[in-house]
């Protein structure tokens, strides 16, 4: 697969998905997939609520998105940063590296955050259950 084709494929898919989530009521639409972990265990996974958060973010509702999934809001800048650098590298002769992703401390911190988030949002205790998806 050529680089250009890959780029077109990915950006088309992302735009199509964004359009779908912009124009559907994500909370009630039955054809959108449910988290398999949540379906099987009843617990929330670190990704639960991210479909609703994505839709809220598309409408510019940052606070609502954070209530659905705070980790999504934390990681969104990282994903956008990485996507932008990949895009720039594809069109420019000068190659930029994504140094922050190669820092051992950064990745360990991120792993700790993900695991903490996963446990905390399932706890029935006061500040923690605010991390569970809610509107």
């Amino acid at each position, binding site marked *: 697969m050529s680089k250009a084709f890959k780029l077109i494929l990915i950006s088309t898919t992302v735009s199509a998905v964004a359009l779908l989530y912009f124009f559907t009521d994500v909370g009630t639409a039955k*054809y959108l997939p449910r988290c398999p972990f949540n379906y099987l265990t009843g617990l929330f996974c*670190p*990704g639960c609520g991210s479909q609703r958060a994505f839709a809220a973010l598309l409408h510019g509702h940052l606070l609502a998105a954070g209530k659905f999934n705070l980790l999504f809001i934390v*990681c969104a800048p990282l994903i956008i940063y990485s996507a932008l650098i990949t895009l720039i590298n594809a069109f420019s002769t000068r190659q930029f590296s994504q140094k922050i*992703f190669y820092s*051992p401390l950064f*990745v360990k911190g991120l*792993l700790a955050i993900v695991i903490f988030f996963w446990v905390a949002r399932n706890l029935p205790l006061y500040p923690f259950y605010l991390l569970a998806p809610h509107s």
Partner: protein
Amino acid sequence: MDFTAQTQQPQTPPKNWLVESILVTIFCCLPFGIAGIVFATQVNSKLASGDYQGAVSASENAARWTKIGFWIGIISVILWVVFVLFFGGMAMMSNMRNEY
């Protein structure tokens, strides 16, 4: 001045699959995404300690788990859509009055 620190990296660092693992974690195939992040931490710490071969094999593991998570995610979405279409169609045919 000592330039050994800069010249010590003979090869480009192996891809650590971190961003891909984060995407898999957030978009719901979680154990695999987290396994990917764990191997990403190994890639980085092995690179930092100069163990290039170890970093390469950790990179391969990260790639494996991230891809497994990605494909299971895609397959479960497809299965879900098929399931909804099938049962949605059945429900429409059997009790059309029972709308909610």
